[in-house]
């Protein structure tokens, strides 16, 4: 019932339009004929060029905007969480069945002291791969409040002393990079696959860049 008047209106509209268009097309060619043909070609070429250049700039700005907003979000996460790397991907099965390969952990570095049971990310001096394990023992000194920490993976048979540097018995606060507070399953597989097959990374980045650059408004 409601659609009927809308339809009749649309049927009328094209008719009036076509009539007016015919009138216009008859009148327009006259003034252009007055110009020389050379000037007309140069004019069109110039206008086409400026449009393409403008579009190209537009695309580059869009691309820049995407890259910078990603950077802004990442830096904001660093500020909020207080960690140098606020999101980490689990790559080893040492915390199974809680955290498996490809799961994502969100870290937070608060002023609260580290206690047994916390899941911490730590970095041993001289090694560049951070490890996510659970704290099983804490010794806090009486006067300095320095904490000595021992960790263990839930799925490992023994504690982490074998993984520390030779002679190192405890972790201290400066080894700790953050505490795991949030969990997201499977999403990290994207990163794992891309680090395992670096070609894929370049293909993906190239394809995305191409997509943005050739995108029509």
């Amino acid at each position, binding site marked *: 019932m409601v659609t009927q008047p809308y339809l009749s209106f649309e049927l009328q509209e094209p008719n009036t339009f076509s009539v007016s268009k015919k009138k216009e097309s008859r009148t327009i060619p006259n003034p252009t004929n007055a110009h020389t043909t050379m000037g007309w070609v140069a004019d069109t070429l110039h206008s086409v060029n400026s449009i393409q250049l403008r579009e190209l700039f537009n695309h580059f700005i869009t691309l820049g905007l995407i890259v910078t907003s990603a950077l802004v979000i990442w830096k904001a996460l660093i500020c909020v969480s207080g960690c140098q790397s606020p999101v980490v991907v689990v790559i080893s099965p040492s915390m199974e069945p*809680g955290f498996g390969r490809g799961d994502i952990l969100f870290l937070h570095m608060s002023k609260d002291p580290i206690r047994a049971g916390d899941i911490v990310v730590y970095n041993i001096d001289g090694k560049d791969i951070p490890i996510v394990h659970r704290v099983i023992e804490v010794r806090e000194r009486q006067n300095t409040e320095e904490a000595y920490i021992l960790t263990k993976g839930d799925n490992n048979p023994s*504690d982490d002393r074998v993984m520390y540097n030779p002679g190192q018995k405890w972790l201290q606060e400066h080894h700790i990079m953050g505490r795991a507070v949030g969990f997201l399953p499977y999403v990290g597989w994207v990163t794992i696959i891309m680090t395992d097959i670096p070609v894929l990374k370049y293909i993906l980045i190239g394809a995305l860049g191409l997509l943005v650059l050739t995108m029509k408004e």
Partner: protein
Amino acid sequence: MHSFGYRANALLTFSITILALMCAMASLSDNFNSPTPSAQVQVLNINWFQKQPNGNDEVSMTLNISADLQSLFTWNTKQVFVFLAAEYETPKNSLNQISLWDGIIPSKEHAKFWIHTSNKYRFIDQGSNLRGKEYNLTMHWHVMPKTGKMSADKIVMPGYRLPVEYR
């Protein structure tokens, strides 16, 4: 405008947004759960209690742990990690926290349990302060979600005391 790439992009963005929203809602729904867990621990026996050659006290004990953690489980709970820690103060350390036993509870059906065990990790002091030492046994648990925020809590059970003599 309505090219294949445009539609694929729209579909992908939409499905990821919905998925993220569902994850956030699942995580937020955990807040409606107010758990009432309970735990009891008895020290049945001090198996041995001695001073190591390097001067540190070590004790081995038999524990009877019973707990009901069923109320911790919600539909967003993947597992609960539970452990029993001994906590005490010495002149050297303001806090000594040693995990004695731990376990992983995979589902609600296994969340009401009792176990008869000797300490899984060694109970060693930094020094020789354990004779007659009063300590707390604390039952900690760490809820690992299927997705979202992790949570932890504990029950402190005070008033345990180690024997006055080595044995």
